[in-house]
């Protein structure tokens, strides 16, 4: 009888422990979703900033060490390939600058005011591969004039996301390519409006009716920021049974290798 009572008491204690655990878990999830725990993000970012910087420095150091183990012949070959690529890139840049100047002059003729953009250069201290959130942590915060909603660019004319959260010395940028996030875009020279869906890692997908004039290599931009490129069409999937064509486009930069970005101050 005493043994039965003891067992009953043990079971009751077990049930209470499980209920308590469930209540705590639910409270934590609720607190997180409602944003009550957001006050902890600032101190965590403060702690994380030196750790991320040490990690990035170590990765750079180790990759530079690798140069010592490459043979002279390999280095010479790599140098030649890189010089060729640089030459082509310089030519394209020269061409692009000329086109940009012409674009600006034509807009002035039409009475469109050309806005001067101000940028803040920021170092990417935590890349998207550290979390499934497709976010970047940058080393510029409210002290540097960063504001929520500021656009984030790579290479000055490729838009990748916007600032979602700001702390005193760091900020969090959310990338537009997060899976299932939707975005209004303009496609190609004719600025065909469509809604793109993020696929993660700088990749997007959108659907257009079959027969819409698009081609591989067409640029995709945001409607309100015509000169900033979001991506380039990489693949067009056409099926006879489907009245729509699936267009896959991708950011021209590899977001997993980003080291520097520009924060556009509006």
């Amino acid at each position: 009888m005493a043994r039965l009572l003891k067992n009953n008491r043990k079971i009751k204690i077990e049930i209470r422990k499980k209920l308590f655990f469930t209540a705590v878990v639910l409270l934590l999830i609720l607190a997180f979703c409602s944003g009550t725990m957001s006050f902890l993000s600032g101190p965590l970012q403060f702690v994380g900033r030196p750790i991320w910087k040490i990690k990035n420095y170590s990765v750079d150091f180790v990759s530079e060490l690798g140069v010592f183990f490459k043979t002279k012949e390999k280095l010479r070959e790599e140098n030649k390939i890189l010089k060729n690529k640089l030459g082509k890139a310089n030519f394209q840049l020269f061409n692009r600058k000329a086109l940009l100047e012409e674009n600006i002059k034509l807009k002035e003729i039409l009475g469109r005011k050309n806005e001067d953009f101000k940028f803040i250069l920021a170092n990417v201290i935590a890349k998207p591969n550290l979390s499934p959130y497709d976010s970047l942590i940058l080393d510029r915060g409210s002290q540097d004039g960063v504001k929520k909603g500021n656009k984030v660019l790579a290479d000055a004319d490729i838009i990748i996301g916007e600032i979602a959260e700001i702390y005193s010395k760091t900020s969090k940028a959310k990338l537009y390519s997060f899976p299932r996030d939707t975005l209004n875009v303009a496609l190609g020279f004719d600025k065909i409006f469509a809604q793109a869906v993020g696929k993660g890692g700088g990749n997007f997908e959108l659907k257009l009716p079959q027969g819409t004039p698009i081609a591989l290599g067409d640029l995709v931009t945001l409607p309100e920021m015509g000169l900033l490129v979001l991506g380039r069409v990489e693949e067009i999937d056409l099926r006879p049974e489907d009245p729509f064509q699936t267009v896959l486009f991708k950011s021209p930069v590899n977001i997993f290798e980003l080291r520097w970005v520009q924060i556009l101050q509006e």
Partner: protein
Amino acid sequence: MGSNSTRIIAVVLLLLSVFVLPWWLLVIFAAVLFFYYAPFFEGLAIGLIADLLYSVPREIFWDLPIFFVCFLICFLLCKIVHKQLRISN
């Protein structure tokens, strides 16, 4: 005492991994620790820390903390496995 000190080292390593390792490697590492040190409550706290560090407001997954939920599933699965192992032993 020995197992306590290794547990503390494991917790510190897991916390550092949040800042250093890719997320999929972090989840694997955490799953191993959840199994070895079941019940590993510290892992749940570290999952929440990871979410606070990296999360941004999202429309999908009902804005749930992804790491915390994954680690919670690991925690519960490891607890069930341990219970089954104890019963079979």
